[in-house]
């Protein structure tokens, strides 16, 4: 390679590396703002912002969904299997909303520690499977749970 081309290649390398470092620094500085949501554990640690709305993400706890008698208000727990936040939401829930589903809610904590949500989004995971497979997985899981319960009650 002749010296001019070598120099150009070197300059390009420097440029890309420089921009890469700048981008890395900028993204690190804005790390918190780039988080789409906070987990219940992060809220428990006090990492979530106070005074303005933010998002909480996690799984809807099994057996926690309660519909209020007025019709549209729903209360449920969002968990990351370590900490839990109780959420109250008035409005229409997305199709994928169900117990055990990953969701992201936007809102604010009130004085009594309940997260009052103004928006509920369902988070879809990266797994896809045919309904029969999902059914057989569920059956196998339920069978396993039953067996364990029988073993426990037999003892």
């Amino acid at each position: 390679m002749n010296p001019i081309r070598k120099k150009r290649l070197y300059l390009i390398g420097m440029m890309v590396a420089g921009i890469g470092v700048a981008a890395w620094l900028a993204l690190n500085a804005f790390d918190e703002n780039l988080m789409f949501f906070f987990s219940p554990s992060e809220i428990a640690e006090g990492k979530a912002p106070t005074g303005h709305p933010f998002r909480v993400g996690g799984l809807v706890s099994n057996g926690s969904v309660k519909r209020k008698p007025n019709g549209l208000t729903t209360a449920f727990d969002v968990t990351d299997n370590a900490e839990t936040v109780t959420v109250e939401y008035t409005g229409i829930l997305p199709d994928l909303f169900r117990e055990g589903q990953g969701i992201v809610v936007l809102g604010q904590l009130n004085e009594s520690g309940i997260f009052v949500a103004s928006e509920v989004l369902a988070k879809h995971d990266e797994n896809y499977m045919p309904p029969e497979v999902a059914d057989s997985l569920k059956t196998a899981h339920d069978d396993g749970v039953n067996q364990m319960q029988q073993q426990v009650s037999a003892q």
Partner: protein
Amino acid sequence: MGSPRYFYHVAGKMIPWFAISFLLTLIAGVYYGLFVAPPDYQQGESYRIMYIHVPAAWMSMFIYIVMAVAGVISLVWRIKITEITIISSASVGASFTFLALVTGSLWGKPMWGAWWVWDARLTSELLLLFLYLGIISLYSAIEDKRVAARAISILALVGVVNIPIIHYSVEWWNTLHQTSSVTITGKQAMPTSMLIPLLLMGISFKLYYGAVVLMRARAEVLERDRNTRWVRELVEGEIK
């Protein structure tokens, strides 16, 4: 080898092969994706939009990487064909990015409950669309096409830092967008019957890009070399 004239003839011979294999894989992919692959246990039939969305998103990043590599070669070796590759790819890349954003939005409304959210994945992909549009505008704003090619090479290289950001956004930050279902390490997030049409569509879109970029590059070669003897002879031959 890199002479425009030689490229023009070789590209002309390659285009039909790309076009035919694109059509064959497209038909196979669409048929397999719409009729053979089973529905999803949660999303039912609407997950099938991923057979357009995911390959389009792959292409949006793949084409940008091609442009950045061509940008390095253009800046260091000043080869005309790689300069032409960058600008011929830009509008195809922009179209695929737009397609990925639109299909994602159509899927997002019923599944997430929102057409659009400002999470890291969606925002960085939107930035990619603006980079493509910036490259196209910058090229057409500069009269001297050799100078224009150098300018867009630099812009393509500046923007290439966005590619790893798009790819890893779903791992580095909490995003609403799910993480990748298809990885090189081979984590099985979907059964083979769902994966086959996805890969077929991925190949099909690449072949489409191959055909279109060659067509566009040929047109660009003719325009740049319009005052040379070989183009004049070619045109005279066509007229006779």
